[in-house]
């Protein structure tokens, strides 16, 4: 089970790397003619091919790309010829800072509210939560972002509308300047997480052994602590990990809204300039984090569940 899941994870990463190197190449046509225009002379195009190493066969290029990538060398940007690794290195910390801060607030908040909603289901509180979360998951992230911006930056004027973070800031300034993007992500991810937590716990409470415990006359608090909680671990791990994975990708749009200097904003800029080395590298980073978190979710929930742990 575990090995199979691990193998699938690694295979996925290989498939993604194939897609973003060879797939992109096949889809985009000749980079050199695209860059220089149709009028470029044959010699110039040939020189460009040589420079970009386009004369060697596909599989060799892929392997060397992969080898360099794993060593941290991601090539140079097409537009300004800076090293992609250093571009990414400068920004990756910012993105993780943003996602980490949002997770720090969202995880305890969403788990608590989700569990409460499940325990008191069909109460007024539960209905309120379910309306809020349904709205939260249905609206685009940028809607939440602009509402928060309108309220906190324009109307109240207490938080900055643009998160122009720089390296020299201390921790407190960093938190202050990235407050709105963090808040946006928190709202968006909490909605998903609450809904999933509630569903998982409701599902759990509907299982026969809980019914049995109730019929035996065990007190509600004891049912929760002794019977429900140990079994809730696996679904809760799943929920948290899946949402963390979502969060890392969710930063893309939020970073664009608040002009936050992170990986997402870098990727979008590169997509517009069609600067493929940057697009490929950032996509690989995002996809890897996503795949790894999903993998962790499965592995941890397997480990926390004795039945899955011992199956063949």
């Amino acid at each position, binding site marked *: 089970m575990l090995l199979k899941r691990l193998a*699938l994870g690694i*295979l*996925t990463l290989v*498939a*993604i790397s194939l*897609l*973003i190197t060879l*797939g*992109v*190449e096949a*889809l*985009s046509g000749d980079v050199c003619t695209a860059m220089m225009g149709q009028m470029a002379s044959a010699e110039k195009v040939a020189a460009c091919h040589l420079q970009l190493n386009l004369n060697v066969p596909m599989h060799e290029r892929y392997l060397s790309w992969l080898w360099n990538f794993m060593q941290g060398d991601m090539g140079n940007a097409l537009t300004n010829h800076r090293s992609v690794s250093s571009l990414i290195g400068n920004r990756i910390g910012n993105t993780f800072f943003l996602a980490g801060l949002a997770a720090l607030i969202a995880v305890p908040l969403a788990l608590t509210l989700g569990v409460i909603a499940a325990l008191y*289901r*069909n109460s007024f509180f539960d209905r309120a939560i379910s309306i809020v979360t*349904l*709205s939260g*998951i*249905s*609206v*685009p*992230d*940028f*809607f939440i972002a*602009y*509402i928060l*911006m*309108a309220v906190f*930056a*324009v109307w109240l004027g207490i938080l900055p*509308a643009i998160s122009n973070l720089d390296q020299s800031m201390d921790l407190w300034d960093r938190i202050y300047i990235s407050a709105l993007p963090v808040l946006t992500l928190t709202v968006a991810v909490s909605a998903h997480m609450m809904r999933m937590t509630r569903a998982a716990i*409701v599902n759990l409470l*509907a299982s026969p052994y809980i019914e049995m415990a109730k019929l035996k006359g065990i007190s509600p608090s004891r049912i929760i602590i002794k019977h429900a909680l140990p079994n809730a671990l696996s679904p809760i791990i799943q929920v948290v990990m899946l949402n963390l*994975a979502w969060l890392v*990708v969710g930063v*893309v*749009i939020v970073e*664009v*809204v608040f002009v936050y200097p992170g990986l997402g904003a870098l*990727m*979008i800029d*590169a*997509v*517009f300039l*069609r600067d*493929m080395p940057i*697009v*490929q590298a950032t*996509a690989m980073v*995002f*996809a890897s984090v*996503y*795949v790894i978190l*999903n993998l962790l979710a499965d592995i941890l929930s397997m480990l926390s569940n004795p039945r899955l742990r011992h199956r063949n």
Partner: protein
Amino acid sequence: MGLLKLFWSLNWGARFGLLIVIFFSTCAIFAPWLAPYGQSQIVGDVWEPLFGKFVFGTDQIGRDMLSMLIYGARNMIALALLTTGCAFGLGALLGFLAATMRGWVDQVLSRFVDMIISIPTLIFALIVLSATGTAIPWLITVIAIIYAMPVFRIARAVAMDIEVMDYVEAARLRGEGLWWIMREEILPNAMTPLAAEFGLRFCFVFLLISGLSFLGLGLQPPLADWGAMVRGNADGIAWGYMHPLVPAACIALLTIGINLVVDTAVQKASGLRDDQ
């Protein structure tokens, strides 16, 4: 009369959702007659106030927001419907194929889908669109492929159950071909569960398209679209113009509406209630 009765039998959430869906569909269908101006026609000054001379003001270059919203509804809903349709066509076809042929075909398709599904959707779309450019056919292809994957899983699971039925066995023994079995035996029986998925997937597609057009990779001008309207007007927020919130609210309202309808429809269809 029958329809009205059905409407009143719904809970308030579903009623509200249905009204929203009907409202936006009407806008989409009758756009040219409803919109006071054209979708790219410049009619006034930059950012004329909301609820003034123009109901929703004018945008960052002086186009009428109301007309753009109405045409935007048409463009976005048409694009999302077409894309979701393609996703369902492709996903269902492959899913049925995997279920009826089993063996290596099933293995190869399923593993492939497992792999594609574990790439985040937005990142996948960004990679491909950065290579191909943002022409509408590419937009539809990419998003349809992304959302064909979950449809494949559902279609395969549903078809697996149908495929073991006696009547399929009978058709096989009669010597019917693969295509005939998929079309005449499996498809009619898989229709209901697939239809229930359609609404939900439509929402996801709609949100992804809005996200892409917000990033500038969706529909290109002169076609109006809500995501691009948000982005275009975004600078206004700093000056206190609330214009970008209007198209963003439209996206939110439509997806919430569809979700409310789908929630109720699924509950009614399966006879399941949350509190059981």
